[in-house]
């Protein structure tokens, strides 16, 4: 551990607002020389924004950053690098088509008479590769390396800019266990050399192993700090959670019916090692919680036939169904409100009417594939009225609508099909509070009418507020299932970070 406890980097009252949200609200952070500082928090707690500000990707609306006790302005990534601050993105920023040496010195190539000096590149690159314990030739193309080694190249590249502060955003998210261990050794070694590391991770066990200190963010504010022996998963979880749940009162009474969606050993292509099994009954809303990257969207994509499952069986209303394309899924009575409404949910340049009609055109078309325009017009008008889409004019191009009304248009196009199984992926993302409430109401109404609803959300209060039952996922596995009584933010976070205790075994009830 670092002996010198003098502060290297200090952030004071950093504030950053985006339209509709305050991402950071007077956040403080201090980093000492030669220390590993972990920054943790739920999705949307403000970690990424904070790191982007420190690395010069974004600029704060208020507050200041001190380096060596001196106020500095970090206006660009370039300036951050000059100050010795390097950000290593979750998705690496390497030129895959170039060799390792070229990547280490990208933008700062050793030159001789204006030409690239390959010998110097190779010699100097080796020095930095040694520092991260990477034993590859600088002449190897980056694309040939496995992901763990690419990460080390990225670190070597940061060191070559003589970075004193390394910011790592979820560095182990795509590494194997072994690769992650190598990375930890390198980080500890760098710490010994006086490099400071800011380490962002959802994996509390890693944080426990690596961090000298932990700063916890919640809803864009400082929620606490832990040092030494206090760095334990349960302490971290209790600081991360605890939000307002007042939005969810006055629920519609619903009665649960027969199982509608029965999933047995579903093999999701991106996580083939952990088959998933669960059931959703008629009238039931099942929330799926988990951290970003836990495999929740991938599960929905497998169910909806976008990335068809590699194995397992799905029954809808007791009948086995084959789900190899969205068309199959729709024919089987499913609907998916996808995560990205602009890319996946809507055709922005088309009108509200055309968007709402798109999945049901086939159902109403006349012989020979002729459009039933009258039906299309009536359906769209009815949905616009029912979902209170504003402006109440279905000939408007969707692009001109607000986020909430766009999302309601997506819901409209699927609810028009009267699905037996409604899948929702982050249905309230980027939507204002008023529209959120309306969307919750629509989901409950759909369930009350007898549909089975599977509802993925990263907003815990939302999941706790409307779900009858919560499935929690962690790294592609279902780590637990919580009933209404047993559900709390703490219980969900324990399971979502892989610290479910009993949750690691089968079918637990609560924590």
């Amino acid at each position, binding site marked *: 551990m670092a002996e010198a406890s003098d502060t290297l980097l200090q952030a004071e009252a950093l504030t950053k607002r985006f339209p509709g949200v305050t991402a950071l609200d007077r956040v403080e952070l201090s980093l000492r020389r030669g220390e590993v500082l972990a920054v943790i928090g739920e999705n949307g707690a403000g970690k990424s924004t904070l790191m982007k500000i420190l690395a010069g990707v974004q600029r704060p609306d208020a507050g200041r950053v001190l380096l060596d006790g001196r106020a500095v302005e970090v206006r660009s990534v370039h300036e951050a690098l000059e100050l010795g601050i390097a950000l290593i993105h979750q998705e690496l920023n390497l030129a895959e088509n170039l060799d390792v040496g070229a990547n280490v010195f990208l933008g700062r190539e050793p030159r001789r008479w204006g030409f690239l000096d390959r010998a110097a590149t190779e010699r100097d690159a080796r020095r930095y590769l040694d520092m991260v314990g990477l034993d590859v030739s600088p002449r190897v193309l980056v694309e040939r390396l496995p992901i763990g080694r690419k990460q080390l190249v990225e670190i070597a590249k940061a060191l070559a800019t003589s970075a004193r502060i390394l910011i790592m955003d979820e560095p182990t998210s795509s590494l194997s266990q072994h690769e992650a261990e190598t990375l930890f050794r390198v980080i500890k070694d760098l710490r010994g050399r006086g490099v400071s590391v800011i380490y962002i991770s959802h994996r509390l066990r890693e944080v426990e192993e690596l961090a000298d200190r932990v700063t916890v963010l919640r809803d864009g504010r400082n929620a606490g700090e832990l040092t030494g022996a206090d760095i334990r998963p349960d302490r971290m979880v209790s600081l991360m959670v605890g939000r307002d749940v007042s939005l969810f009162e006055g629920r519609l009474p619903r009665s649960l019916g027969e199982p509608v969606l029965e999933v047995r050993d579903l093999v999701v292509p991106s996580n083939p090692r952990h088959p998933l099994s669960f059931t959703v009954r008629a009238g039931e809303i099942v929330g799926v919680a988990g951290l970003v990257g836990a495999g929740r969207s991938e599960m929905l994509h497998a169910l909806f036939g*976008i990335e068809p499952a590699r194995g397992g069986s799905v029954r809808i209303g007791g009948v086995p169904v084959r789900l190899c394309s*969205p*068309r199959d899924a729709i024919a089987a009575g499913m609907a998916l409100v996808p995560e990205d409404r602009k890319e996946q*949910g809507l*055709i922005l*340049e*088309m009108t509200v009417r055309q968007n709402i009609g798109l999945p049901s055109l086939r159902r109403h*078309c006349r012989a020979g594939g002729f459009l039933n325009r009258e039906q299309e017009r009536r359906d769209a008008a009815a949905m616009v009225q029912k979902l209170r889409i504003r402006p109440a004019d279905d000939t408007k191009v969707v692009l001109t609508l607000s986020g909430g009304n766009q999302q309601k248009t997506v819901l409209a196009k699927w609810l028009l099909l009267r699905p037996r199984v409604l899948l929702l992926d982050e249905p309230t993302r980027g939507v204002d509070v008023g529209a959120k409430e309306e969307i919750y109401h629509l989901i409950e109404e759909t369930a009350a009418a007898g549909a089975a609803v599977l509802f993925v959300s990263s907003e815990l209060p939302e999941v706790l507020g409307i779900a009858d039952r919560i499935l929690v996922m962690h790294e592609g596995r279902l780590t637990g299932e919580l009933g209404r009584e047993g559900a709390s933010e703490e219980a969900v976070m324990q399971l979502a970070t892989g610290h479910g205790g009993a949750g690691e075994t089968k079918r637990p009830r609560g924590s």
Partner: protein
Amino acid sequence: MKKVLGIFGVLLAICVIASLGNPDFLNSYNLQNILKRTALYGIMGLGAAFVIMSGGIDLSIGSMVALVGCLMSLLLVDWGLSTPLVFLLLFLLALALGLIHGLLITKMRLQPFVVTLCGLLLYRGVARWITGDSLTPPGGFTGAHEGLRVLATGRVTLPLLNFPVPIPFLILLAVTAVAAVFLNLTIYGRYLLAVGRNEQAARYSGINTHRIVLLAYVLCALLSGLAGVLSLLDNNSIQPPQHGSFYELYAIAAAVLGGCSLRGGEGSVLGVVLGAALIPVLNNASSLLGFPTRLEFAIIGIVILVGVTVDELVKRVAAARRASHGAAAVKN
């Protein structure tokens, strides 16, 4: 709709200027010629337009015209096959080539530009090879086959109109009607526009996007084949190395003039036909008004460039107006 009116206005203006500058423009023979060229470019342009609406491109049109023409001459004149059989074989050939283009683009995920560029080279090469690179049929159509040429050179004087309309133009009108019904009144037309705009969202909505893209390339190949038949019959005999070259560019130009965006998902059938008419009208008008024929390409290029620039400017003004209007609405 505004775009269609715009191109119609330009077309009308050029016609008026040309007929004022040189009364020969309106002479029956001249007009028939223009209509014949319009028919050819229009048929190919509609094919190109379907592909462009799907978000792709087809560069093989001209070579396809040459290949179909050469093969038709070979099968009909040299091999002496019966006319219906030849038409059937040519239809199957175009169908197969369109399917191959579409499959390579959807299933193999090759880029449309590359696939159809290879088509451009390949079909031209095959056309030259099977004909020995010489004029075909050598002496033009004779005897029993000569009657076929009516399809391309015939005229029908419609009642009321008192003007002999070339048969190819009537064929274009029929194709246009079918294309307009397809695009505007069937679910497949709607799917085509959806796929061109946002392939992912279309797929998530349950549309079989591969099948729609495939359909676009097949339609384009079939229409190119039809153009190949008509242009062989019209020319009587053709030179394999040159015949039909640049036609894909005329077809794409017609589609773009007619309001198709190369980004996909946009365009109207009527616009494409008007765009196809603009090319021969421009050519004809510029030569009648005394511009050197060597400038032909340059003039077409400038007109298209000005056209798309004006279109873009109009769009920006409209967007700016909408934005300020929207802001005002929010304030109120």
